[in-house]
């Protein structure tokens, strides 16, 4: 009888363990794909056709490297003032007569960029403002393990700071160096196109302060917007097109030296 009982126990044990393991397995197999299902539902709920699609044009011929945009951004968005954290910055490119390219962006260009190369050595020089490119196929959004960074229905790449676990994987995944780890909130931080402003119908701070209108912000779906006109009238290019991120920041007059 004893062996009978043990056998029975054994059978029950195997049954329940098999059920437990099977259940866990099935759950872990299904769980990662739940996200997919959810996104689909959301897609149906939120009809994106009524939303604007935000983008930015940068006219490099107009940029004078005053750095006002970078400064305004820091003030507007509470970006730490230390020179290691930028949502936007301006790079100064100087191509020397000998072909050497010098790139500089001290303090992100805040305070104005000054030429350090003597005039007679310069072949050409230009400024390149940089910011998050709000990619349509954003590598950072793809990489985020918890979905804390996402693309809003109006095409802005945002970070949910109450959700980000601070793993820095998105920072590694961004090809443009547009993200940083905020030392105060301890979450990944980046340009939001001043989401708090644009959702009220205002312009992003950097666009607002630019004295030469080198930055053109607007709705890519609105055929009458300044941005669409800018794209129509100028041959524009995106940064690192070979990475196929489908960026929504377009540059006019982008030189091949720019990386």
């Amino acid at each position, binding site marked *: 009888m004893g062996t009978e009982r*043990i056998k029975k*126990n054994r059978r029950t044990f195997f049954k329940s363990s098999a059920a437990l393991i099977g259940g866990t397995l099935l759950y872990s197999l299904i769980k990662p794909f739940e996200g997919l299902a959810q996104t689909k539902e959301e897609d149906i709920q939120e009809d994106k056709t009524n939303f604007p699609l935000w983008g930015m044009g940068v006219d490099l011929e107009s940029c004078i490297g005053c750095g006002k945009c970078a400064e305004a951004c820091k003030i507007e968005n509470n970006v730490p003032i230390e020179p290691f*954290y930028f949502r936007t910055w301006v*790079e100064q490119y100087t191509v020397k007569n000998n072909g050497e390219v010098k790139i500089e962006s001290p303090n992100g260009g805040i305070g104005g960029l000054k030429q350090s190369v003597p005039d007679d050595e310069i072949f050409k020089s230009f400024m390149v403002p940089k910011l998050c490119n709000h990619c349509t196929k954003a590598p950072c959004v793809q*990489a985020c*393990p918890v979905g804390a960074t996402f693309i809003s229905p109006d095409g802005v790449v945002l970070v949910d700071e109450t959700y980000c676990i601070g793993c820095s994987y998105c920072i590694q995944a961004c090809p443009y160096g547009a993200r940083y780890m905020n030392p105060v909130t301890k*979450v990944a931080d980046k340009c939001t196109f001043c989401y708090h402003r644009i959702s009220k119908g205002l312009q992003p701070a950097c666009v607002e302060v630019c004295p030469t209108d080198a930055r053109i912000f607007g709705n890519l779906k609105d055929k009458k917007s300044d941005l669409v006109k800018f794209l129509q009238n100028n041959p524009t290019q995106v940064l690192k097109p070979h990475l196929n991120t489908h960026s929504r920041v377009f540059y006019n007059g982008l030189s091949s030296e720019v990386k």
Partner: protein
Amino acid sequence: MEEHYQHLYEALTQVDGYIYPNEIDLHWGLMIVLYPYITGLVAGAFILASLERVFNIKALKPTYGLALLTALAFLFVATLPLVSHLQHPLRSYEIFMTPNPTSAMAIFGFVYLWYLMVVLLLEIWFDYRRDFVIWSKTSTGFKKIFYKLITLGINETDEKSAKLDDKLGYFITVLGIPSAFLLHGYVGFIFGSIKANPWWSTVLMPVIFLFSAMVSGIALVMLVYMVVSWVRKVKIDMLCLDTIAKYLFYILIIDFTLESLDQIHRLYEAEESFDIIKVLVGGKLNITLIYMQVIFGTIIPLSIIGFFQIYKPAEKIRIIAYFFIGIIVLIGIFFMRWNVVIGGQLFSKSLSGFTSFKAVYSGMEGYLMSAVWLILPLLILSFLLWLMPPWKKVSIHE
């Protein structure tokens, strides 16, 4: 925070060329070097155990139990450096609650759990169940309680039950081989899938990680076997040790070939990123890559074991040589991880300059904490060996 800023200001003065202003801070430090290192040791140790059990390499029998317990001890610790490096470690559970299906890192959590809960724990349990029953009758105190509990009430010790354990254990091991491949291949994919970083983004990355994992795991079990034998004052089984070394030799050759292939491919294609990578390898990574990883960690051990395949010196000399090889291979693979993780962040994604990395002693990302994460699994292993010594097992699988 002030200290952190000071550190960054110092790094700012060390910048060479142009880097994006957000790139001064290295976001992944020593903890992320340790994470693939420890995970690799787990996968490698497990694969060594499988060689014996599934591929029936009888000479490796003395290391089977040791390899499994080593894998378990390191697996317990594997995710800790990863979690401790998070800026919000308390939110880490979100990886399991709302994983992003497109994120390589998110799926790792599930791969890890599968490996720990289903593969390793089950395999060890099936291997030990009968012994737990027998030991529970002869021991006292904590051990007795532990053995009693861990049998989960299955107290049969007859031949039939042992056969069933063996069969199920074998099945789990077979399942375990692709799982171990998955576990570490996946770690490689976390890096290999980052297209923003040309140093990481190679399709070979998961395969390289896998083979380097096997190399490190085998070297570790070889060392553990030698040390345990010395502590127990038993004679080292030379056939076993020679066989481990032989496998280490073969897999090190494959690993070295793959990594060389990767570099040759870069060199020949000489894409946009090649210029900066050339400077990286020749400069900032010169010592850790050329000397520590390639010469010290690969060429020297390959030459010694290769020589032993032609001419076998006295046992004593071989034992000393194997011990030395085990250590340098482990150091070499550590630097391989270092070169991937740190190396990949030293150059700017603007491909125009370099930042610098200076590890600190204190803090969560420092040397001391790293030492803790490397010593802790050894303590766990000692405890496991005390609790369930493989050499005292009564039932040994066919």
